[in-house]
C-alpha cells in the first residue's frame, strides 16, 4: 500500500514547529505503524536528513512510552490499542495520515512527536503509594481480599500512564490517570489508611501541574488504550468528598 504522511516536526519546546509531508510506497499492510515509521526514518537517515523523533520502547502496548495523535485521535483509530500495537492494515491504500504530538500545556514537546510526561510521575509521588518500608510487611495471606475487589483494583492499576486521556480531553485534564491510581488503592485494604491524604494531595498536584478540570465528558475513557473506565473518576470524586467529611 502507499500512504501520504503529514508529520509535525519541531526541534524543541522553544522553537516553532510545523507540518511536513512524506510519501511512502509499497508498505506491507501487516507491519506495525511504528515499523512504518522505522522505514521512513531509515530513508531519512540515508538522505542525511533528521529522522522523526518519537517515543516507543516495549512495542507490546504495556510500557506506555508510545503515543501521539493519528488523524486527531490519541493512538489512532483502533479501539483499546496503543500506537505500537496498531498495524498498517487499519489504513487504506493512499490514505492521508496526520501525526501530531499529544497536545497539552503540561506535556511540553521534547522534539517532533515526543513529549515530556514527567508531570504524571509528580502526581504519583504526591500520594500514589502505600507507605510501607521494605521488610515491614505482614504474611501475604493474612490480608484476604475478595476476588471481585482484587480484580477491580487490577483493572484500575492496568493504566500504563501513556497520557492519551490528557490528549483526548478538551481541558487537558489528568483526571482519569489520577483516578485510576486513587481507585486502585482505595479498593484495597492496604490503601485505606492513607486514603484521605492521598486523594487530596494527588488532586492538588494535578492542579499545580496545570492539568485542566474534569467535566465528565468521557473522551478519556473512550480513547484509553487500556479501557480505564469512568467509574474510576466517580470513585475519585467519592474519595475526595469523603476526605472533607
Amino acid at each position: 500500500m502507499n500512504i501520504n504522511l503529514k508529520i509535525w516536526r519541531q526541534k524543541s519546546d522553544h522553537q516553532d514547529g510545523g507540518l511536513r509531508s512524506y510519501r511512502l510506497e509499497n508498505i506491507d499492510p501487516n507491519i506495525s505503524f511504528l515499523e512504518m515509521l522505522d522505514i521512513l526514518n531509515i530513508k531519512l537517515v540515508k538522505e542525511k536528513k533528521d529522522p522523526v523523533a518519537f517515543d516507543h520502547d516495549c512495542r507490546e502496548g504495556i510500557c506506555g512510552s508510545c503515543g501521539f495523535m493519528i488523524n486527531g485521535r490519541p493512538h489512532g483509530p483502533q479501539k483499546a490499542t496503543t500506537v505500537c500495537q496498531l498495524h498498517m492494515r487499519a489504513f487504506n491504500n493512499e490514505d492521508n495520515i496526520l501525526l501530531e504530538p499529544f497536545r497539552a500545556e503540561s506535556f511540553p514537546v521534547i522534539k517532533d512527536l515526543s513529549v515530556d510526561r514527567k508531570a504524571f510521575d509528580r502526581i504519583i509521588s504526591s500520594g500514589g503509594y502505600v507507605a510501607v518500608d521494605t521488610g515491614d510487611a505482614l504474611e501475604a495471606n493474612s490480608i484476604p481480599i475478595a476476588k471481585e475487589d482484587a480484580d477491580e483494583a487490577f483493572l484500575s492499576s492496568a493504566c500504563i500512564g501513556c497520557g492519551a486521556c490528557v490528549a483526548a480531553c478538551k481541558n487537558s485534564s489528568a483526571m482519569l490517570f489520577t483516578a485510576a491510581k486513587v481507585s486502585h488503592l482505595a479498593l484495597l485494604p492496604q490503601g485505606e489508611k492513607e486514603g484521605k491524604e492521598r486523594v487530596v494531595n494527588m488532586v492538588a498536584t494535578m492542579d499545580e501541574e496545570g492539568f485542566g478540570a474534569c467535566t465528565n465528558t468521557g473522551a478519556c475513557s473512550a480513547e484509553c488504550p487500556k479501557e480505564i473506565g469512568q467509574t474510576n473518576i466517580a470513585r475519585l470524586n467519592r474519595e475526595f468528598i469523603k476526605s472533607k467529611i
Partner: protein
Amino acid sequence: MIDFNLFSKAPDGDLYTKWEDYKSSLKKLSPEEANKYKVIVIGTGLAGASASATLAEKGFNVHAFSFHESPRRAHSIAAQGGINAAKNYKGDGDSVMRLFYDTIKGGDFRSREDNVYRLAEISKNIIDQCVAQGVPFAREYGGLLDNRSFGGVQVSRTFYARGQTGQQLLLGAYSALSRQMENKKVRFYSRHDMLDVVLVNGKAKGIVTRDLISGEISTHSADVVILATGGYSNVYYLSTNAMASNVTANWRAHRRGALFANPSFTQIHPTCIPVKNDFQSKLTLMSESLRNDGRVWVPKKKSDQRKATDIPEDERDYYLERIYPAFGNLVPRDVASRRAKEVCDEGRGVGPTGYAVYLDFQKAIEEKGEDFIREKYGNLFDMYQNITDENPYQTPMKIYPAVHYTMGGLWVDYNLMTTINGLFSIGESNFSDHGANRLGASALMQGLADGYFVVPHTAMDFLAKEKPLEKDITDMPEFVEAKKKTEEEISKLMKVDGSLAVDEVHRELGKIVWDKIGMARNEKGLKNALEEIPKIKQKFWSQISIPGDDKDVNQELEKALRIKDFIELAELMAHDALDRKESCGAHFREEYQTEENEAKRNDKDYKYVAAWEYSEEKSPQLFKEELQYKNVKLKTRSYK
C-alpha cells in the same frame, strides 16, 4: 593483568541458615550515618527501583538514573506470566528446598548453590512485600492468593496478575521509589544514558552520563555504584526485549575491569509470535503460562499444507507430550525451544515460513470453557489476535522460539559486587542465579530479591567500611579523563559519514548472532562468527550515518552508542560458546549431545563459571570460578 581469584565470598556453614547468619554479621549504619553517603543506581526496573527505594528508606541519598522518561517504563513492565515463591499455599509439598532444587536443576547445574538457596528463601518475603504495597495479585474466591504452575516444575508456586505480572510488580516498586522521591531521599535523572564508570584508586566512585535531551555529557560522584541495567538480548537484533534495552552500562563497566560471566548463556523462549517479514522490529512473547492449557503440536507429515483445524487428531504429533510424558508441555524453556527448532528443521513446521509450531487451546476450551480461558489469558489472546489477525479461540496459535533473557552478565560475588570494588550488579544484569537456563517466573523473583532484600544489606556493609566522600569529586583527573574519553568517542561516531542507518548494521549483526550463537552452536559456526563480527565492526565504523547534532535529541546517536557495544559483546559471546565444549541448559553445542538429542553436560571439565576479562588489543582472557555442589547431587537433567 590482574590474576583474578574468583571466590564467591559466600560464608561457610549450614546452607539453610547461612544467609540469615551472614546478614546479622554484616555492618550496619543508622539512618543518620547513612545520610552521609551517596549511592548511584543505574536502571529503575524491578531491581533498580526496589534497591533505590529500600536504600533510601535506610537513610542513604540515592541518585537513580534511567534512559527512560519514567521509572515505570522499564522493560520489567513487560513480564507477563508471574513470580515464583515457595509459599506452599497449595499444600502440594512445595518448600524453599524444592524451589532451590528446581532452580539449580533448571539451570543445568551451572549456578551457585549459596546464591540460589538465598533466592528461594527470600522469595516468600517478596510476595509479602508486594501485597503490602497493594499489588493486585490474582485471588481465589475465598480471598486468598491464587497460584499457577510454570515450566520445569511440578508444583503450583507462581503468583500472577493476569498476564501483566511484571507491570503490577514494577508499579509496586515504582510507587515505593516515588514515595522516596517525595521524601527527597531519591533524586531521579530521567532520560540519561550511562556511558562510563569512573574508578578512583581502583574503586567505583562515579559515572559519566549523556542527557538524552540536551546531549550534555556530565559526571557524577558517589560512594558506591549499583548497576541494575538488565539484559542484552538485543544483541540478536530481534528479541522480545524492548527496543532500547542494551548492554552499554555493563559493557562500559566490563571495559573498566568488571569480568563478564557466561555471556553465551542466552535464553530462547519457546512461545513467541513468529517472525513475519524483513521489517520486523521486535518479537512478542506469549507467556509461558499458556503452556498450562495449550498443547504444542505439529503435523506428523512433512510440509502439510492443510489448515490446522482440518488435520485430524491422529495425524498430529504432540511432540512434547510424546517425548516428555512426565512434564509434557511444561518442560523447561531450553528443552521446548530446541525441540521446536528440531521439528521445524525436519520440515514439519507450519505457517508461511515453516518456522512455527502450533499452540492449541481446543481441548482446554472444550473442557473448561471459553470464559475460563478468557479470564486467565484474555489479554494475551487479544494481543495475539491484534498482531497476527487470527483468532486463537478458533484456530491454534502459531509460535516459535525467540531470544528473551540473558542468564549471563557481570560476574558478582555473594554480596553481588563485581570484580570492581564498590560496583554492584543486580537483577538480570548480573550472572548469578540462573546458571545455564532460567526457569519461568524466576526473573521477577531475582530482580526483586536482589533489590529489596540483598543489595541493601551488602551495600550497607560495604559503605560502613568506607569513609563517605566529603564533597563532590568530579573535578578529580579520573572524572575529567573519563568525560573526555566519552566526548571523543561521540565525536568520532558523529564524523563517520557513511550511508547506512545504524539499524541496518544492527540487523546484520543480529543475523550472525542468531545463526551462529543461537539455539544450537557448533565449532565451525562459532569460528565463522569470529571472522564475520570484526567485518561488521569495520562496517559500523566506516559506513554508518548519524544526522543531526550530538548536543540535541538524537535517537540515531543513542542507538549507535548501544550497537557499538553489542558488536563487541557478540565477539565475546562467540569466544565463550567456543570455550565451553559441552552442552548445558540453553547452551547447546551440536557436537555434544546424547543419542536422544539431549544436552550432554561435562561436569568434569566444565563445572565452572566462565568469567572474561576485557582486552583492547588481544583476545579476552578467561578466569574460572569452580562451582561447588555440597547440598545437591549433580545429575543429568531429565524431564521424561
